[in-house]
C-alpha cells in the first residue's frame, strides 16, 4: 500500500516585527495506512506547525516551502496541500486528514450541541443525506467512540460533558468523515492520567477497528511508548532522528534523543529508598487533623468542599509528595498551609503553632508556584523580587548586604549573578523557575511548598529543576510539600506520598510502597493508567487493557 501522507522538505517561517523566524526547517516524513507515527519534541521544536501544515491551517503570516502530499492510500499521494485551491483544500480537510486538538473544551463550540457540531462536517462535504439521517449518523459515531447514552448526549452542549467525553466527541468528529488519517496534536495533554488512558485506548481502537493512521504530536514519551509504531524526533525545526519505536527507546542514535530520553522520569524504576526513618519522634513541621476547606459558592450557590477532613503530617526534613488528579484538592492543601486560602474546619498546625497565629510563620514558609511566567511581578527585576522577602521582614540589612544575599541565592540555583538585573520576561521558563526557588529559599525557610513546580516546563528543563530541588533539599534540610499530578516526578523526589481523590486521602505511605504496591483501588487505577516511557514494558502493562466505557466520567 502507498503512504497516506508524505511531507517533503517542508520549510515554514513566520513574519514577525523582528523579521522572519524559521519554525520548521526541511522536515520530511511519511505516514503509511494504519500506522501511528509519533512526532515528538519539546516546545518550539516545530512539531505543531508541521502538524497544522498537513491541513493547511497555518496563519497568513506563515511562509511555506516544500510539499505536503496527501492521498487515500490506494495510490501514491499526489495532492499537494500547500498549493491546493481553497475549494479543493476544503474538500480535503476532514476527508483525507482530520485533526484532533489538545484542549477539547476549547475545540468544541460552547453554544452549539455536540450533534450539531458533528454534523457540520458531514454537511460541509455533502455527506449523510438528510438532516435526520445525519443526526442518526452522529448518534452512531458517538456510540462508536464510547460515549454512553449517545441518543441523549447528541443534544447536549459541550459543558455538559466531562473532559474525556469531550475528547471522544472530537475524535468522533474526525472519524465520522471517514478520514484514513488523524492528526492528533497533544490529544491527551490537557487530560488527567486516568482519562488519558481511556483516550489512548480509543486511539488504539481507531487503528484496530477503523484502520485509521495517526500522526501523533506529543511531548510525552510515555504516550509515545504506548501508542506509536514509529517515532520522529524534532528539535529546533528539524527531524533529528526517525526510527521504529522499540529501536528508538532501546538504542537512540542522535545525541538529542539520548538527552531527551534520559531526562524523562521513568516510572517504576530507580525507586527512591526511604532516606528517613519512619518517625524520629520530633514534632512534625506541619500537622493537619481533619483539615477541611470549602470554596464559597457564587450567588447563593452551595459551597464546594475542596478538601474533606484530611489528616497528615509533614516531618522535619522530609519531602511529602501530594498526588491526585485535577479537582482532588491537592493545590488547596498547599495554599491552606501557606495561609493563602482560609481553612473551614479541623486543625492545622504549622511549626507547632495553630493556624490563628499565622503572622508569625510568614516568611518561614517558601512557596514555589506552578507557572514561573506569572509568579514574578513583571515590573520588578528578578533581583528585586528575590529581595522582597528580605526587605519585607525588615531584617536589618543594608542595600549592599541584600544585594550580596540575592547574588549568593542566584548562585545557589545555578543562575549567573547578572540575572538579578533582568526582568522576568527576559528569562526562559527554566531560569524563571530557578529564580522562583531562589526567592522561596531567601529566608531559609524550614518548610517549602512546591505546587506543580515543573509541570509548565519541558522535560529536559524539568529534569534539571528537579535535580536542583533535590540537591538544595539535601543541603539545606528543609521539609517540603511537593504537589504534583505526575506520579513519575513524585516518585523521583518524594520520601512519602499522600494520594488524594476528590478531597479525601485514599492512601498514604512510603513512596516505594504506595506507588509500587498500591492497596487502594483508586491508587491502583492511577498507577495502571500511567504510561511508562518504555514500549516493551508499556505493552506488558497494557494487559489486560483498560475496560472501555467503564471508567468513563
Amino acid at each position, binding site marked *: 500500500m502507498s503512504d497516506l501522507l508524505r511531507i517533503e522538505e517542508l520549510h515554514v517561517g*513566520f*513574519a*514577525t*516585527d523582528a523579521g522572519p*523566524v524559521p*519554525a520548521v526547517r526541511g522536515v520530511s516524513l511519511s505516514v503509511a495506512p494504519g500506522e501511528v507515527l509519533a512526532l515528538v519534541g*519539546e*516546545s*518550539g521544536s516545530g512539531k*505543531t*506547525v508541521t502538524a*497544522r501544515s498537513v491541513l493547511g491551517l*497555518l*496563519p*497568513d*503570516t*506563515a511562509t511555506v516551502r516544500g510539499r505536503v502530499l496527501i492521498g487515500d492510500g490506494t495510490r501514491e499521494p499526489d495532492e499537494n496541500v500547500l498549493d491546493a485551491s481553497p475549494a479543493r483544500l476544503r474538500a480535503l480537510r476532514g476527508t483525507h486528514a482530520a485533526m484532533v486538538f489538545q484542549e477539547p473544551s476549547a475545540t468544541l463550540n460552547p453554544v452549539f450541541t455536540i450533534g450539531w457540531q458533528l454534523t457540520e462536517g458531514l454537511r460541509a462535504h455533502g455527506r449523510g443525506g438528510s438532516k435526520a439521517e445525519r443526526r442518526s449518523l452522529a448518534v452512531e459515531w458517538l456510540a462508536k467512540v464510547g460515549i454512553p447514552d449517545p441518543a441523549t448526549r447528541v443534544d447536549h452542549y459541550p459543558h455538559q460533558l466531562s473532559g474525556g467525553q469531550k475528547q471522544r466527541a472530537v475524535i468522533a468528529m474526525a472519524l465520522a468523515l471517514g478520514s484514513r488519517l488523524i492528526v492528533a496534536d497533544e490529544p491527551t495533554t490537557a487530560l488527567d492520567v486516568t482519562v488519558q488512558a481511556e483516550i489512548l485506548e480509543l486511539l488504539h481502537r481507531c487503528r484496530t477497528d477503523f484502520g485509521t493512521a495517526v500522526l501523533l504530536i506529543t511531548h510525552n514519551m510515555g504516550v509515545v511508548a504506548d501508542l506509536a509504531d514509529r517515532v520522529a524526533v524534532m528539535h529546533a525545526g528539524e527531524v533529528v532522528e526517525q526510527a521504529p519505536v522499540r529501536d528508538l527507546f532501546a538504542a537512540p542514535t542522535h545525541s538529542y534523543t539520548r538527552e531527551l530520553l534520559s531526562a524523562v522520569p521513568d516510572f517504576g524504576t530507580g525507586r527512591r529508598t526511604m532516606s528517613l526513618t519512619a518517625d524520629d519522634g520530633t514534632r512534625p513541621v506541619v500537622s493537619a487533623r481533619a483539615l477541611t476547606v470549602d470554596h464559597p459558592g457564587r450567588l447563593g450557590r452551595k459551597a464546594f468542599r475542596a478538601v474533606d477532613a484530611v489528616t497528615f503530617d509533614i516531618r522535619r526534613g522530609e519531602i511529602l509528595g501530594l498526588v491526585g488528579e485535577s479537582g482532588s484538592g491537592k493545590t488547596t492543601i498547599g*495554599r491552606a498551609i*501557606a*495561609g*493563602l486560602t482560609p481553612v473551614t474546619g479541623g486543625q492545622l498546625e504549622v511549626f507547632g503553632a495553630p493556624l490563628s497565629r499565622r*503572622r508569625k510563620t*510568614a*516568611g518561614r*514558609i*517558601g*512557596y514555589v*508556584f*506552578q*507557572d514561573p*511566567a*506569572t*509568579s*514574578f*511581578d*513583571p*515590573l520588578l527585576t528578578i533581583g528585586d*523580587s528575590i529581595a*522582597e*522577602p528580605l526587605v*519585607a*521582614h525588615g531584617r536589618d540589612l543594608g542595600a549592599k548586604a541584600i544585594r550580596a544575599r540575592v547574588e549568593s541565592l542566584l548562585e545557589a540555583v545555578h*543562575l549567573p549573578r547578572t540575572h538579578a538585573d533582568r526582568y522576568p520576561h527576559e*528569562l*526562559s*521558563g*527554566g*531560569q524563571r523557575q*530557578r529564580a522562583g526557588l531562589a*526567592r522561596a529559599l*531567601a*529566608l531559609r525557610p524550614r518548610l517549602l511548598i512546591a505546587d506543580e513546580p515543573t509541570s*509548565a*516546563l*519541558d522535560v*529536559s*528543563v524539568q529534569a*534539571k529543576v528537579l535535580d536542583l530541588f533535590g540537591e538544595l533539599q539535601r543541603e539545606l534540610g528543609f521539609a517540603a510539600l511537593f504537589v504534583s499530578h505526575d506520579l513519575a516526578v513524585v516518585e523521583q523526589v518524594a520520601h512519602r506520598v499522600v494520594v488524594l481523590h476528590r478531597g479525601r486521602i485514599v492512601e498514604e505511605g512510603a513512596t516505594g510502597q504506595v506507588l509500587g504496591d498500591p492497596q487502594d483501588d483508586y491508587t491502583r487505577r492511577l498507577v495502571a493508567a500511567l504510561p511508562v516511557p518504555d514500549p516493551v514494558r508499556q505493552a506488558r502493562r497494557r494487559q489486560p487493557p483498560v475496560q472501555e466505557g467503564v471508567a468513563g466520567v
Partner: protein
Amino acid sequence: MTLLLTRRPPLRPRIRTGAGVQRVMLLTGLVLTGLFLLTALLGPLLAPHGYAQLTDSQGLFGTQQHPSGGHPLGTTIAGYDVLSRTIWGARTALLIIVAALLLSVVPGTVLGLVSGYLGGRPDRLLVGLADALYAFPPLLLAIVMSIVISGGRSSLTGGLGAAACSVAVSFVPQYFRVVRAEVIRVKAEPFVDAARVIGTGPWRIMTRHVLRNSVRTLPLIFTINASESILTLAGLGFLGFGIEPNSAAEWGYDLNRAVADVTAGIWWTAVPPGLGIVLTVLGTTLLSESLTDLADPRLRKRGTTPLLPADGGADDE
C-alpha cells in the same frame, strides 16, 4: 497617475499587516489633538474677536451675517463672530477635559484599588452603586448635577464646575469598574500570592505590586474620558444648560442657538462649532484606539504567538 501606480504595491502589504492602519490612526490622532491643544492655548492670539464681542470700530457686527472678509464664518443670531467663538470654544473644551480628569481619575482609581483588593461587603456595596450609576445615561446624571451645582444658570466657573462634576459623577464609577476589574485580575496572579506568602503587608502589596500592574489601561480611559467630557458638556449646552455666552464660548450652546438657523437654511452658525466638537473628539478617540492596538498583544506580535508557545521553550544555560 504613474506615480500613484508605482506607489501602490509597497503600501498595500503594510496596510494588510495592520501596522500601517495603526500608524495612520496614531498620526492623525496626534495631529488633531495637537491642533486642538494649540488652538486652545493660543486662542486669544488666533481669534479675530473676543467670544462675547458684539461690536468693533465699525459698530455692531450685525446678526446672522453671511461669511465675509470681516467675519470669515459670519455672525450668529445674537451677533457674535462665529470664527472667534469657535476658536474660543477650544479653550472651554480643554478646561472641561482637565477638570473632569482631575475630578474623576483620583477617586475612581483609589476606590477601585482598595475596594477590589480588600473585597468583602463594602466592595459589594460600591459595586452595586457603581453599576447602578454606570447603567444610567450620563447626560441625565449631568443634568441632575448641573441643577444641583448651579441651578442651571452658569457663569464660566459655575458652568464648567457643574459640567466637570457631572462628567465626574458618571466617570468615577467607570474608573472604579476598570481599575477594580484589573485589581481583581492582578490579585489572582501568582506573583501577588508570592508576596503574601512571604508576609508582605496588604498596603505594600497594593501599592508595590497591584497598583502598578493595574493602571496600564488608564491612558486609554483618559482619552475616552476626554471625549466623553466634551460630548457631555456639549450635550448640556445644547439643552440650554451650559455656559452663558458672555462667560465663555461653548460649542454645544452655539449649536443650540443654531437649531433655528438651520431650519432657515443658515449653515455657518451650526457647522463650525459642530466641526470643532467632531475634530476634537476624533483626535482623542483615534489616540485611544491606537493605544488599545498597542496594548493588544495579538496585534503587537502578530503571527508568532498562536503557534509557537512563548514559554517553556529553549532551555537555560
